[in-house]
């Protein structure tokens, strides 16, 4: 719970005691020029983003396609090196790491992708898949590596009957368990999960989400959970950041975000999620139009062309992410301000 106005915890972003602190992260992509003499255009995929994750915390990043949530993860991991900004992991500045140092660092920060089958080597048996990361990082003896892999497979719910199978012989849910085992076997301090359950069926999603929750308790995992599925995020995450067109528009504790959303985009997004109760959503906020192209961002607040409550100020200046305590919002109107 957040206590507005009273629980101010120092300047934002509050990165004291953070395991991972992202500050003013920027990642632009250059796209092909429009025509032979056209100007090179820039997509502002991640545009000045700051947040931090405490140890043992699950932070969700939500938003619609193209909002930059995956680009944030890839910038953190240097898969797409950030253009500017800082990513600090404990005392280490990740943006300044050399490639060999990065290889060692990836043991501590693991990544789980959406499509499990593409994350696994089709020619390697399951047990060997899980031993492989240990071999790459030179951890333990051969015997110890095998024992460890067997133990972690057990923890994700795969028994000896699966050890000799190939990835294609497993179901999607089982494949994602193997991917999680591969990440966890290195005992990482953070795992970044990018839409880890989107490719799975509903009943299997629940199994994997429940597994994540169990592993989190068992291993004290810190997770950056990227998803477009707000229902799952509400269930799994401690805090949630909502992204729109490359910016965080709202960041709060999960209960505060879902019970008292402040940003009009967050409100519309929550309202757009269907619930299995006929007639329950008659008060839906229906957004007009679609997100503008991240190449030609509107002036002022990026959300203003679709916003139902925009005032002239919203078309002139871009709101900063402000707020009291742990609940911050980038909206001119969320803090009692009028134009």
């Amino acid at each position: 719970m957040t206590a507005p106005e009273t629980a101010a915890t120092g300047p934002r972003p509050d990165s004291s005691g953070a395991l991972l602190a992202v500050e003013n992260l920027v990642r632009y992509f250059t796209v092909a020029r429009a025509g032979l003499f056209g100007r090179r255009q820039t997509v502002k995929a991640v545009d000045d983003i700051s947040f931090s994750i405490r140890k043992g915390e699950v932070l969700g990043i939500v938003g619609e396609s193209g909002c930059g949530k995956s680009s944030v993860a890839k910038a953190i991991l240097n898969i797409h090196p950030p253009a500017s900004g800082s990513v600090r992991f404990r005392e280490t500045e990740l943006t300044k790491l050399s490639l060999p140092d990065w290889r060692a660092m990836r043991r501590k920060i693991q990544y789980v992708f959406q499509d499990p089958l593409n994350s696994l080597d089709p020619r390697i048996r399951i047990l060997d898949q899980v031993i492989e990361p240990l071999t790459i990082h030179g951890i333990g003896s051969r015997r110890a590596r095998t024992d460890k892999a067997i133990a972690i497979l057990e923890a994700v719910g795969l028994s000896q009957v699966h050890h000799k199978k190939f990835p294609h012989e497993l179901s999607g849910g089982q494949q994602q368990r193997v991917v999680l085992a591969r990440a966890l076997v290195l005992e990482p301090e953070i795992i970044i999960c990018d839409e880890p359950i989107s490719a799975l069926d509903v009943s299997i999603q629940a199994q994997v989400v429940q597994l994540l929750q169990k592993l989190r308790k068992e291993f004290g995992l810190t997770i950056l959970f990227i998803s477009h599925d707000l229902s799952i995020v509400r269930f799994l995450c401690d805090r949630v950041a909502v992204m729109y067109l490359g910016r965080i528009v709202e960041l709060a504790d999960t209960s505060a975000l879902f019970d008292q959303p402040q940003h009009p985009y967050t409100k519309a997004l929550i309202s757009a999620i269907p619930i299995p109760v006929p007639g329950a959503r008659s008060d839906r906020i229906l957004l007009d139009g679609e997100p503008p192209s991240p190449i030609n961002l509107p002036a002022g607040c990026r959300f203003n062309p679709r916003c139902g409550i925009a005032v002239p100020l919203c078309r002139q200046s871009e709101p900063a992410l402000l707020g009291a305590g742990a609940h911050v919002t980038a909206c001119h109107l969320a803090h009692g301000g009028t134009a």
Partner: protein
Amino acid sequence: MLRVSNLTVSFGPPGERIPIVQGVDFQLERGRILGIVGESGSGKSVTCLALMKLLGKTATVGGTAELDGENLLALDEPAMVKARGHKIAMIFQDPAAALNPVRSIGWQLGEAIGLNRSNGVPQSGEGARDRAIQLLRDVGMPDPERRLKEYPHQLSGGMNQRALIAMMLARSPKLLIADEPTTALDVTIQAQILRLLLDLRERLSMTIMLISHDLGVIAETCDQVAVMYCGRIVEMGSASELFARPRHPYTVGLLNSRPRIDQQISTLKPIEGVVPSPYALPPGCAFAPRCSRSVSACKVAAPPLDERGAGHRVACFNPAEAAA
């Protein structure tokens, strides 16, 4: 009105046919929306493709599907070509794959308009252009004049889906089959497209079959719901009845598997195990191996879809209690 009786679909050569859809029965009044919900492999898409007669030669289709008294399944291919679009139309999950990538939206709409020789609309020239713009306006396409010249890759997923719906409307079908029409779209766009489907039903009394894996989408949009598992309808009823009093353990399990945006819960109750392969269906009820309520009868024979009050039909020997 659509009346589907004992629809069965199997694949493979004679003697080794694998049943994919078994004994599907339902009726749908004009202007109503039927939701079919189920996971991958439940047979929901195959059911729809069977009605469209789009399954190809490896499929064996049995049963009847009468649309206003005419059995679609008995039509020969030339008659079916006429029926498609005019009587029964389908939109798909990936609109970009259903559109022609090298033709403009205007050209493709013109093609659909030109095929319709019944409504007196000119099939080419200015009249057809006006009709195309009108259709795009009807489906809420922003800036319709400009869209005529654009190609599918220039439009967003939501706009492509609107373009497909406009092409479908050009031939005013009686029955629209929408197979996961919003699954590839963002939630705010999904809300817009679902609103559009409800609007079409309202304005044109269109009959719609909506396929989805998302119980929320089904609950909000449909009048009637059929839950499918391994090729059979396991539960069916009005949306209000089925979601208020789910009886089949699979329906209950599906509802318990999803956290809800409007509730803070601490544990999920997933359905254990996985959907069996159609090559190795268990004897009796296909859900029995995953079911917490299964009794010995479940392993012997598949339970019939019995009436359990007020149009609510459940295929289960030991259904969950009807909660108040």
